[in-house]
């Protein structure tokens, strides 16, 4: 089960990174009004990528303890930081980007 989780997390991490790249590419076609919104969304996706990286490291540590045993001392704090700070920050970023997009629409209208 954990291996399935690891696979899903790795794929999710790769997809997040790919999304960041595509967003950066699409940013140049957007109007300047929505620039801040897109930038905040990019920052949120970066935080989400970090959360996924921490999850991948946790799973790797559980599956391959011998090779990733050196992460035992840091993983607890990584998980705590990701759950306490990074995930809520991701939520905040998404909310802020939506709000700024709405503001942009209002400015345009």
């Amino acid at each position, binding site marked *: *089960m954990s291996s*399935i*989780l690891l696979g*899903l*997390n790795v*794929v*999710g991490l790769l*997809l*997040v990174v*790919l*999304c960041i790249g*595509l*967003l950066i*590419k*699409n940013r140049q*076609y*957007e*109007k300047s*009004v*929505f620039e801040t*919104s*897109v930038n905040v*969304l990019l920052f949120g996706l970066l935080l989400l990528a970090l959360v996924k990286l921490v999850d991948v490291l946790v799973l790797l540590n559980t599956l391959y303890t011998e090779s990733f045993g050196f992460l035992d001392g840091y993983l607890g704090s990584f998980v*705590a930081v990701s*759950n*306490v*700070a990074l*995930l*809520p920050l*991701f*939520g*905040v970023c*998404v*909310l802020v*980007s*939506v*709000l700024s*997009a*709405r503001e*942009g*629409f209002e400015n*345009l209208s």
Partner: protein
Amino acid sequence: MVLEVLISVQKYITVILLFIAAFIWLLLRKERGEEGLADLRINRAYTVIVLMVLPFIIGNFSLVSEELSEVGMNFLFVLIFLSMVVVLLKLNKRSSKERENDLRDLMKESSKHPIRYEFAKRIVVPEITKLRKIEDKLDNKNKKFKLKEKKLDVKQKGLDKTIKKLEELKKFISDNLKRSNNAKKEESDRERVYDKKESVLIVREKKLDAVEKDVKYTRNELKNLKEELTRREKLMNPRMNRVESREEDVEARMSRVRIKESDIREALDNIQILKKNIAKEERVLKKSIRDFEDEKDDTFDLKKKVDRVTDKNNKIKSKLNEREGKLDLHEDKLNEREKKLNSFERSLSKKSRNLSALEVKFGKSVVDLEKGDMDPEIGKVTGEKKFRVKKRRKK
């Protein structure tokens, strides 16, 4: 414990934040519709990302086991982001195509695009001004370049002249090179000869070294000999003194001998004088012989006596001739025996004594002959005048 509570609280907060965001976005979408959201090209990406609330809801509020909820949450996460990637890819392609079309419209002169004027104002005009500045600079540079070209033409003429000179120099150098090559060959030949000579010289040097060694050896020997000579000189000095004293004695003797020689010479001179006198007397005698021959007839007895006298005279003559020969021999011997004067000194002195004795005797005989004393063997010798007077009386 506190951390776990905090983590669960934070998860709930996240879900709430995402829920609010989704709610706001969905309201906005409902208000404006899809056409109203067209200003934001990636609005579909926003709707997809708002769906992120679902996996978090499943993760926090699931009724099944934790593992299953985690798997479901990650599965949904992957699905959402996969759909987001697809949406973003499509959007990217579409927007890139639109941008290309816009750019192509800009390139067309006939179509009037609203951005075209702005593009012309903001981008083309400053570029044109820059290009004009560059053109002015290029014109200035062209003028300078033409001036430089003229200068360069002048220089080129000079260079042509110099090139001609250089070509002449090249020819000269090539000739010189040929000569130098020939000279090099000659030098190489000479070097070979020199090498041979060097080898010969080396051999000679070795020989000279050997000779030098010999010379050194001989020098050392000479030094030794000199030292021995100095020693011998030291030893010989008293002997040399003796020799010098003897030389002085010899010189004294030689001086004596010279004195005696001078005496002998004087004696010889006297002898020669005597010889002359004798020659005169011989003439006189011949005359007297003639007179005697004339008187032969008259005086037969006297004839015999005259013959005897003549015989005696002849004997005396022969004796004188012999003595003359002896004297000549003595002269030669004296000349030869000058070096051996010490040994001849006594003999010469004896001979000089004998000679003096003979001289005395001879002188007496001559005096007697002149006085006209009668010789016991020849008889009375008369003078020429008396003889003529007697002849007249007889007649």
